[in-house]
């Protein structure tokens, strides 16, 4: 009895139950076009009211439903994946707190409660990244936490700026205060916060580093919770951000992120890092379509992407489990023969990622690309979009060729099993969702379909770049030991691409070096030098010497004291008399 209901199963049950509740509520809210806002005024002073408010509309309910679905299936899956973990309870509690803080972020239209959820995400993601306690995890966790800290600070500053308006319910001021200068400052800060959370270009080095976390956490973080928080925040602020100059900069950065992640994924051999970089690429896609003003498309892609990305990570977790905790894709190969069901899930989610027709990714990605093609853009942004689409196909095909086709390279004696039904069951839920969620959502959340009108070649452009990318991926996967030498011909360029355009150096090594050496100089010259001489030790010596002198006076003959007193009185009397 005690064994039967493990903590994983109980958490799964409740999360799934809430997911179903959210699902029905969401359908009801969509049908009746309903929005419910609940407010509880905590304190009110000097015409400023701090309220805890909850916003329930179809968007928050739908997102919550997806978060709960993914987290419930991940937790169920975790029962097998983390079965030999000692501190399983702690892990589950951390994950549930993570989900709760994400939900707090989703349902709050108030910037203070958003900060609560936001900070909760940052803190617990740190705890989860350092869960395997080694130096690499600590470094990755610190990088994650500090990068996210920038966003936290931005949100804090937004709170300070929003004091002007007397309330922190930003949702009321989005339209009304749009031309206010303060609101522009706020929107810039919000964009910066979202860029840190969604790992856009200056801040993107933490995302592959956060792969040090356990795989279920990666599945959760990269699909629906942590990294999508920034996108969700910007979707909520979308009304404010329209026609802003900052948004164009965001468009450029997110497009570059998309391309950077796509290129870097091709250089990577770590299974989880490839998937993380593909997440980064898709985040760039969401951000860029968002910054063109299509918040609903970004949301659509966010949801579908959440489904197949969670599935992809879960499959990766299964593979890592089987591969003797090995993540190198060069060691894998020929898996489709040994583990057909897991390979099925893996391939379907990968295909959905590339946008193969009628899978989940197709509906959102194709729509985004066609809307991009129809809108008024310059060539560079268009190239970024389409090049990245090709790159997605490129690394996906490469990954599939490495994993599915070649010979198994890890050990000569091996026994792969595909009968871990706990994992498979939870993956089946997400497999189903990543098959149907694209079409389901496209029918559900758009009131009327997007009208796409373009010439045949423009329409087929997506297919051209995809085919080209797939071709390239196939060719790259054929690479053998002799062609590695070809990389050495352009060593610097390859290093540039492999190290994510030197992004880690920007946020870790380059930054730390100057700050730490400056700090060392300060410590040496001020703390151990002048400051010690003039404040602590020097002052002590000074007073001690004065004290010694005063002691010498104290040791005088008693007669002299009395005489000096009398002498003083006489002196003053003389001054009176004279």
């Amino acid at each position, binding site marked *: 009895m005690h064994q039967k209901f493990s903590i994983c199963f109980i958490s799964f049950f409740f999360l799934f139950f809430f997911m179903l509740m959210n699902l029905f509520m969401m359908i009801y809210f969509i049908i009746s076009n309903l929005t419910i806002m609940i407010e509880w005024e905590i304190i009110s002073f000097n015409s400023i009211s701090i309220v805890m408010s909850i916003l329930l509309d179809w968007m928050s309910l739908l997102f919550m439903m997806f978060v709960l679905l993914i987290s419930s299936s991940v937790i169920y899956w975790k029962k097998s994946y983390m079965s030999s973990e000692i501190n399983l309870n702690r892990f589950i509690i951390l994950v549930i707190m993570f989900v709760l803080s994400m939900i707090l972020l989703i349902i709050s239209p108030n910037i203070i409660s958003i900060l609560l959820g936001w900070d909760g995400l940052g803190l617990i993601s740190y705890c989860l990244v350092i869960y395997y306690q080694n130096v690499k995890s600590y470094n990755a966790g610190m990088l994650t936490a500090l990068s996210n800290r920038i966003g936290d600070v931005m949100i804090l500053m937004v709170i300070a700026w929003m004091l002007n308006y007397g309330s922190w319910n930003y949702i009321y001021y989005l339209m009304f205060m749009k031309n206010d200068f303060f609101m522009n400052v706020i929107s810039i800060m919000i964009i910066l916060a979202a860029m840190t959370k969604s790992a856009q270009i200056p801040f993107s080095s933490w995302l592959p580093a956060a792969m040090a976390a356990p795989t279920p956490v990666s599945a959760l973080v990269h699909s629906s919770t942590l990294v999508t928080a920034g996108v969700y925040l910007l979707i909520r602020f979308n009304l404010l951000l329209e026609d802003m100059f900052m948004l164009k900069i965001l468009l450029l950065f997110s497009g570059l992120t998309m391309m950077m992640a796509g290129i870097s994924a091709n250089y990577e051999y770590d299974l989880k890092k490839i998937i993380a970089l593909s997440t980064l690429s898709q985040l760039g896609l969401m951000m860029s379509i968002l910054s063109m003003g299509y918040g609903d498309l970004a949301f659509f892609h966010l949801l579908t992407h959440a489904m197949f990305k969670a599935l992809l990570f879960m499959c990766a977790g299964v593979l890592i489990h089987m591969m003797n905790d090995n993540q190198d894709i060069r060691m894998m190969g020929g898996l489709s023969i040994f583990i057909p069901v897991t390979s099925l899930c893996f391939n379907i989610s990968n295909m959905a990622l590339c946008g193969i027709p009628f899978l989940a990714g197709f509906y959102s990605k194709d729509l985004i690309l066609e809307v991009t093609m129809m809108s008024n853009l310059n060539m560079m942004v268009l190239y970024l979009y389409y090049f990245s689409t090709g790159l997605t196909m490129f690394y996906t095909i490469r990954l599939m060729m490495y994993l599915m086709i070649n010979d198994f390279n890890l050990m000569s004696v091996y026994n792969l099993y595909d009968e871990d039904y706990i994992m498979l069951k939870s993956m089946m839920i997400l497999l189903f969702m990543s098959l149907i969620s694209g079409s389901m959502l496209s029918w559900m959340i758009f009131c009327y379909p997007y009208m796409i009108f373009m010439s045949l070649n423009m329409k087929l452009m997506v297919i051209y770049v995809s085919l080209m990318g797939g071709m390239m991926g196939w060719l790259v996967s054929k690479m053998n030991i002799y062609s590695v030498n070809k990389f050495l011909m352009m060593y610097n360029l390859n290093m540039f691409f492999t190290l994510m355009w030197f992004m880690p150096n920007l946020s870790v090594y380059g930054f730390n070096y100057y700050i730490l050496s400056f700090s060392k100089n300060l410590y040496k010259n001020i703390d151990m030098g002048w400051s010690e001489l003039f404040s602590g030790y020097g002052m002590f010596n000074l*007073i001690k010497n004065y004290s010694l002198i*005063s002691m010498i006076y*104290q040791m005088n003959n*008693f007669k002299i004291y*009395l005489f000096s*007193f009398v002498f*003083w*009185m006489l002196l003053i*009397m003389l001054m*009176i008399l004279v």
Partner: protein
Amino acid sequence: MLFMINSNKMFFFFTLFFSTLISISSNSWLGCWIGLEINLLSFIPLITSPNNLLNSEASLKYFLTQSIAPINFLFSILLKLLMLNFFFHDLFSIMINSSLLMKMGSIPFHFWFPNIMEGLSWLNCFILMTWQKISPLILLSYYMNINFISIIMIFNCIIGVIGSFNQNSIRKLMAFSSINNLGWMMSSLMISESIWKLFFFLYSFLIMIMCIMSYLINIFFINQLFNINLNFFFKISIMINFLSLGGLPPLLGFFSKWMIINFLIMNNMFLITFFFIMSSLIMIFVYIRIIYSSLLSYSFKFKWFKNFIKYNYIMIINFFSLISLSGMIFSTFFFI
């Protein structure tokens, strides 16, 4: 306590208290002088004891200084009476103030004060540090030369700090700390008498706790604190009361200093405030030096050494420590 059973001492206590009252409530300078003299003559029998040579020495020194000061006081008031027509108020006031400063042991005539403290028992030290200062301070407030006294109180603070910095004897240290507090008292006297009352009351209260505690465990030097077997609460009481005496913010001793600082700043006396605050910073360092090494860091526990303190004294100490710990918070309720 000990003096309660001795009828002679009770008599001299009576005259000691009433002489002070005579001097502060008389309406002529001569009456003040009479009060001072009676005060001296009743304090000397209190501090002498036939068994202790140091006490006799201290009483002799006390007699000498305290007789010279009132003589000069008498001389100057008579001079002032004679020369009433002349216009030398500044110098007269300096003369009278100087004799009073000598009487209460302030800068620059403070040299007798630590020496005599060294020879007294803790309870006499308490009387010397608190009660014996009432009449000179009140008389000072009647005829005060502000410029002269401002300089004097700054120097009081500085010398009090510097003298107590290297001190090993706790009695001498308390003497210098009393000199330091004398500066605060004079400044409060300069502002208003009610603040002086508050400050003096709180100061005597804290000094009383310190003296009673030191009397109970019979310590005169800092190094005695190292090898004394004290229970935890007694140590904590010593610590709290030292910090409170130094004026650490949440404690009671800060309250009086806070008021004085507030009024000094309101009256634009920034330089004096600066010196006061800086000196009390170093004073806190001195107190912490006592507490830190002896009560927090190092202590020996001797198996053969038992420090017995009566239970009711512990109760009193704990009650006083409670007041000195949270008195400021309690006292804020009076002002609501």
